[in-house]
């Protein structure tokens, strides 16, 4: 494979002693180098592709579960208890933290429920009224029972329940 170049026979097909022309030997090497470069290139592309496909491989935007409090705090609940929770919204390399008021209450079977304080009617914040033992919306007087079900007023449904989970004795909620 040590031909001196520049001679016309290097580039013209001409049978050599071995039965293989110089041209075809050059082509064979060319194919070998081409294939080699292709495979090395493909190998080098792997980290690039993984890097670009990161949003497919992992979560880049995420709504984190917010801790509401220890379960023990809510074991002797007699009326809805207001809690301010911190909602962490991860967005790539940044996160936004906001605060929202939620109510921890008990459902009909005594299970813990977490209600948003946002009125399903027009989005006002609904406070719990101790005197009336009801949620009373200050905007248009919609009322809801302690478990969030609709009692009266313009709202078409009860207060929204949030998805909850328990981890290490902590009540977590997903604010959506």
């Amino acid at each position, binding site marked *: 494979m040590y031909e001196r170049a520049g001679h*016309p026979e290097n*580039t013209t097909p001409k049978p050599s002693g071995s039965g293989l022309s110089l041209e075809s030997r050059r082509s064979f090497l060319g194919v070998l*180098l081409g294939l080699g470069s292709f495979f090395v290139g493909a190998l080098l592309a792997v980290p*690039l592709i*993984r890097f670009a496909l990161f949003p497919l491989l992992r979560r880049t935007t995420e709504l984190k579960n917010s801790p509401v409090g220890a379960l023990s705090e809510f074991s002797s609940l007699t009326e809805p208890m207001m809690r301010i929770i911190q909602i962490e919204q991860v967005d*790539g*390399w940044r996160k936004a933290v906001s605060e929202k008021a939620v109510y921890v209450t008990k459902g009909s079977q005594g299970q813990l429920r977490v209600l948003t304080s946002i009125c399903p009617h027009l989005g006002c914040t609904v406070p719990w009224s101790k005197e009336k033992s009801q949620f009373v919306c200050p905007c248009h007087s919609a009322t809801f029972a302690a478990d969030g079900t609709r009692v009266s007023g313009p709202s078409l449904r009860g207060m929204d329940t949030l998805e909850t989970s328990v981890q290490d004795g902590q009540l977590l909620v997903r604010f959506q």
Partner: protein
Amino acid sequence: MHSTHKSEGDTPRRPESGLWGWLSRRTGLDDLLRSALNEPIPGGARFAYIFGSGLLFIFTSQVITGIFLALYYVPSADHAHTTVAYITKAVTAGSFLRSLHAYGASAMVVVLFLHLSQTYIYGSYKGRRELLWLSGCVLFGLVLAMAFTGYLLPWDQRAYFATAVGTNAVSEVPWIGESIKRLLRGGTEMGTLTISRFFVAHVFLIPAFIFTLAASHIFLFRKAGAAGPVNEDLYDPKQEAELFYPRQVVMDLSLTALLIVGLGLLCFFVPVRLGPPANPADAQYVPRPEWYYLPIFQWLKYWHGSAAIIGVLVVPMLLVLAILALPFLDRSVERRPWKRPAAMGAYAFVVFSLLGLGLRSQFLDQHDSGVARQLSKQSAEEDEYARKPFEPELSSASLAAANVALADPLAAKGKAIFEGQSCNACHGDGGVGTAAAPALIGIGTKFSPDQLAELFKHPTAKMNAGGMSPIDLPPDDLKALIAYVESLK
């Protein structure tokens, strides 16, 4: 001797068939490839000639990795470090790609030095190759400028302080130094405008020049022809020529393979570290540049006061001018190094001076206990930061809400009252407004505290109609509530 590639085009070729043949007939790609590969090298292929294509390979790798890094990077003082931390700690293969880009810069400087040395020692700049040499010199400068501008972009302690020192050195230039420094930094101090400027230079400006000049460099090289070995005639090559393909191609690819394996292993096992974010207030930090800038860094230490002009301007300018003018000054056709003692002496002097200055800098750092301690502390801080998991940056909107409570205790108390009185029921959390009541943000600019107190106690008819009831609070609480409402921005 009929070893010119002109005979190449004259020989009849088999007509190509298939897709490749069609593409060749339409584009002339086949001829282009042939003329690229059939470049004659007088005296045959050698390992001494592999550095140019090695540079082309690393540059291509830098362009590709650079484009990919830009998928996540944000060039601003408040996001640059977070985004680089995200690349390094969170994104898959991010640490590897960033390392490839950072070590690639070092590899570029090394191979560039070898390429330049080979050209110089072989006397390949001679014989109508002035423009080839000049374009190479400018490319060298551009690569160093790429390294300098890229170094700042991660905005960690190391990057910040090295660039602060680097841009400060410019201000030693008489009369216009201070202005150049300000222009580079985008102000008197380093800041977010500095990142913008360095980013534009690193990503748009310098690469555009490199593309143009590298193309010219290759064109001029092909125009002048390969210079061949040191005993070859520069104007009329006499030695038997070998074509670039296949042996020289294989030799060039062996350097590429070495670079791929070397850089790959390095990036995998010793990834580039990202230090803690830049803290301009850190007065203790001992800045050190990247290794290839150490000789200049050490050199500048020797020049102070009125003599600074000699060290910062005169000597470097003379050196640069001498290098640029080399093919014009050295007109002899002698290429054999042993017949060029002055040229070889000058080369050895410059190389050993640079090496000596770099080693001197290292030696001084190791033998000054104060500096050595601080440097190892900085290194430990980098290690500690590198081990921490990625922490997303808190968005400015969240910070504004949180800062109200921190800034003013009266407003913090007011916030509790705002929520306790269910003001947020209608006006929304943080006074953002709801369907039932307007937003309160910016109300402080419309009404004075006294006017607000009056409105709170005696709402207007329109407010009453909207459902706003008079606020009955003790004066202190009312004051706190007003302070909070005034703070909403």
